[in-house]
């Protein structure tokens, strides 16, 4: 098995250039791209998540580690595709209709990408129809809804209801999050999961796609 410690150190330090250089070197030495993900990047990002949970890393550190990982994925995704390997999962993400809060959803997107997910970010104030069209078009396994205020939470239920009416509810997992969202709200509207923060959103997404 290849030694991925240099790559892992670079990811932990959030050093994109060093991470890409270490990944290039590993590949030139014959490392398998899938091994690089499973034994290089994934354990490093798991450690980043652990450090965040433990209060040793904060959002900025999470973001630069996720960016480093994302850049490594840019390098290896074509190689993975050649081997027939798929992204960890495909997520359609957006802030619900009537709500303009961008940043929570952006953080979730950045960490999902760092976790190997392909993210289709629809932006803010996204209508149910737009979510439905994107899920159908991109064949996403997960749709992620974000909101800032209690006044925009009802739009999450409206979106879920629209998926039910379109007969698509069983074809996609729904995860939700945002400051006013709770697990009990997620249960009430019938979402498949609630992420308290961006790091737990990645764990949830992995669970939802069965990784």
């Amino acid at each position, binding site marked *: 098995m290849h030694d991925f410690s240099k790559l892992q150190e670079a990811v932990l330090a*959030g050093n994109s250039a060093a991470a890409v250089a270490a990944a290039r070197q590993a590949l030139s030495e014959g490392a398998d791209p899938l091994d690089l993900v499973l034994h290089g990047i994934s354990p490093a990002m798991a450690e980043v998540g652990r450090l965040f949970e433990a*209060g040793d890393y*904060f*959002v*900025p*550190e999470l*973001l*630069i580690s*996720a*960016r480093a990982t994302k850049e490594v994925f840019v390098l290896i995704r074509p190689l993975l595709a050649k081997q027939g390997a798929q992204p960890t999962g495909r997520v359609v993400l957006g802030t619900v209709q*009537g*709500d*303009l*809060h*961008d*940043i929570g959803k*952006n*953080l979730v997107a*950045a960490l999902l990408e760092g976790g190997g997910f392909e993210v289709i970010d629809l932006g803010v104030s996204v209508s149910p129809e737009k979510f439905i069209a994107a899920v159908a078009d991109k064949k996403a396994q997960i749709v992620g809804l974000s909101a*800032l*205020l*209690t*006044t*925009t939470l009802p*739009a999450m239920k409206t979106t879920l209801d629209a998926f039910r009416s379109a007969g698509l509810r069983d074809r996609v997992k729904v995860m939700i999050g945002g*400051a006013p969202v709770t697990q009990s709200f997620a249960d009430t509207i019938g979402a498949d999961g609630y992420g308290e923060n961006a790091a737990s959103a990645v764990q949830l997404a992995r669970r939802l796609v069965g990784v």
Partner: protein
Amino acid sequence: MNSDDPLATESFQQLVVEPRLPEVLRFLGYPKGVFPPDPMKQSIEQVLTRALPGLEPRGTFSIYAVRAHTRRSLALGSETIAGNIGEFLHGASRVAVLVVTAGRGITELSTEAWGAGDSLAGWAFDAIGSWAAEAAADALTQQISSHLGADEGLTLRYSPGYCGMDLSQQRTIFGLTRPGSIGVSLLPSLLMQPMKSVSGLVGLGPRELVGVNLSPCDRCLQIGCHMRR
């Protein structure tokens, strides 16, 4: 003057806010007293320098005599505000209704940075915008204090959406002052635009009745909030 009219209304197109790194770091998610090591600290400082021209801190307030109040309501001008705010501001003889904004430029900088793949700068611009909105509210509160008489003081500042007032009271607040004069509007979802805006109430009254040393966070149920004071 009609008895429902405000006693005073003022708008400020250029409030003075002075960024201090420790405060900005809290909005970035660092706990009080925690400083990131270099080069992270340098990166954040650089974003802060780039952010300053993007800040347009503006504010407006109208001061009303309290017409009536109960524990669960407060009557100002032609409006009645519902919620525990009646109890929170019980010592105030007048109340300033305020709206401030850090402007839309800082959110645009954040969006651009995210779009360009610079998530750290995107996050930092956003955090600076949040800090600037709070700082603008502090600066406006300072202006309100020039309306205090001898032996008078200000209450804490309370905002709709926290436990003293439901978010629906945003409409009442917007009816009592002139947010249009500083470019702030209220969407049907009750979100203010630009995003980095704050609305609220602050009471003016005899110092012995309003001078409480509470933090608004003592009244808030968001126990896990990283901004808890």
